[in-house]
């Protein structure tokens, strides 16, 4: 547990030294979502209709974008192997890094989502649910993403491959996340979707660190 805190603290201090990096995914999120009114229609009712999907797809992509910055340097500069050699278990490293990743990338998305929601004409209720769904859903994205990035981090052009590997695994989260917001916006019950998102989070908390740690050791070899 102590080592968990230390790794998280270290990750955060590295990121906050250069703010630009952690602003990228957030800027990406805002810009992608603001493309939709321009591309589809500025008509308020239609915007509200596509808003849940737009928010979730943009969140998915910006998290995907953040993974490389988070894992590549540790892999290349030897930090990962040093942590492993210090006796820290691979799954703890993954858990700590994924947590830091979420703090830096996921949490800002959760916080900015209501503003995007307003821009896309979502009602208050749906907006709050969007925030809540992102809060439960984005940590799973970070964990599943950790598996993908650790499988591809040692490869020469792993970037596109990472997308190919990870996006299909993101689909359930996308479906339930967007559907919760949609249900809220038409006044239906949304608790089922949120419960499933929570279940997915628990499952990925239990399994993803091990899979990602196995992947990490393969990549280090």
């Amino acid at each position, binding site marked *: 547990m102590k080592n968990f805190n230390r790794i998280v603290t270290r990750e955060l201090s590295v990121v906050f030294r250069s703010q630009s990096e952690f602003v990228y995914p957030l800027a990406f999120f805002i810009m992608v979502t603001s493309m939709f009114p321009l591309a589809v229609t500025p008509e308020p009712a239609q915007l509200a209709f596509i808003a849940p999907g737009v928010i979730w797809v943009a969140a998915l992509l910006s998290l995907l974008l953040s993974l490389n910055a988070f894992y590549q340097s540790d892999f290349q500069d030897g930090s990962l192997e040093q942590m492993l050699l210090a006796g820290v278990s691979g799954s703890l490293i993954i858990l700590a890094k994924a947590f830091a990743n979420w703090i830096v990338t996921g949490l800002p998305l959760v916080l900015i989502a209501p503003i995007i929601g307003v821009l896309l004409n979502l009602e208050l209720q749906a907006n709050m649910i969007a925030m809540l769904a992102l809060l439960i859903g984005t940590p799973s994205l970070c964990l599943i993403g950790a598996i993908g990035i650790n499988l591809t981090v040692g490869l020469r052009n*792993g970037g596109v491959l990472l997308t190919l590997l990870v996006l299909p695994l993101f689909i359930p989260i996308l479906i339930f996340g967007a559907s919760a917001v949609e249900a809220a916006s038409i006044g239906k019950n949304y608790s089922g979707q949120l419960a*499933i998102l929570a279940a997915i989070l628990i499952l990925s908390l239990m*399994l993803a660190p091990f899979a990602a740690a196995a992947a990490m050791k393969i990549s280090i070899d």
Partner: protein
Amino acid sequence: MWNWFFQLASPKWFYTIARKVTPWLSVLMYSLMLAGLVLGLIFSPADYQQGNTVRIMYIHIPAAYMSMMIYVIMAVAGAIGLVWRMKMAHIVSVSCASIGAMFTALALLTGAIWGKPTWGTYWVWDARLTSELILLFLYLGFMALHSAYDDKKAADKASAVLALVGVVNIPIIHFSVEWWNTLHQGATLSKLEKPSMDTSMLWPLLIMIVAFKLYFVVTLFHKIRGEILLREKQASWVKKLVADSKQ
């Protein structure tokens, strides 16, 4: 039991057995395939709703069924390879991928073509078609990851991890897509699934399913043999085999 298990793990043993068994399996496969085709195309009746397009079912359903079964086999073999560090298991896992991807693509294509006369359009975001599409992505990811690694051993392990992650995800993906589908379109597209099937249609379907399974086993054995030769090129029995085959 364990003895047999570990014998199976020896590439040389597998190679010789596969070589002996495949001709027999092939004969069985050809005859079943022929029987299934004759029954399905000529002797089975047309459906009262769908007419003769129902005959697509005799290849579509086996292909879809194989696409899922092969993914599970691929993941289980990968897991065995990871846990017991068994060369053979990785070879099986890797050889499965392209056959599975092909069946997935075939299931998608036949499903789409079936959709045109049935629903009036080639593609609908039907739950089954969508799941199958995602399964194709998973297969492609597996194959892409395996070929991206230079080192074969690392490639085997990495893709085995991916297959395992995928196999845990498939039920979740399937459930989510099914759920999403009912939410958006209602249960109007249940034409593919009939509550009870007439025996005259059930028989050709069952025969085709078995024939497709045999096809998979035979093709897999051929692929595995090719793969074993490449990977065991330092083994003396492979050197001898290659030298013998030249004469």
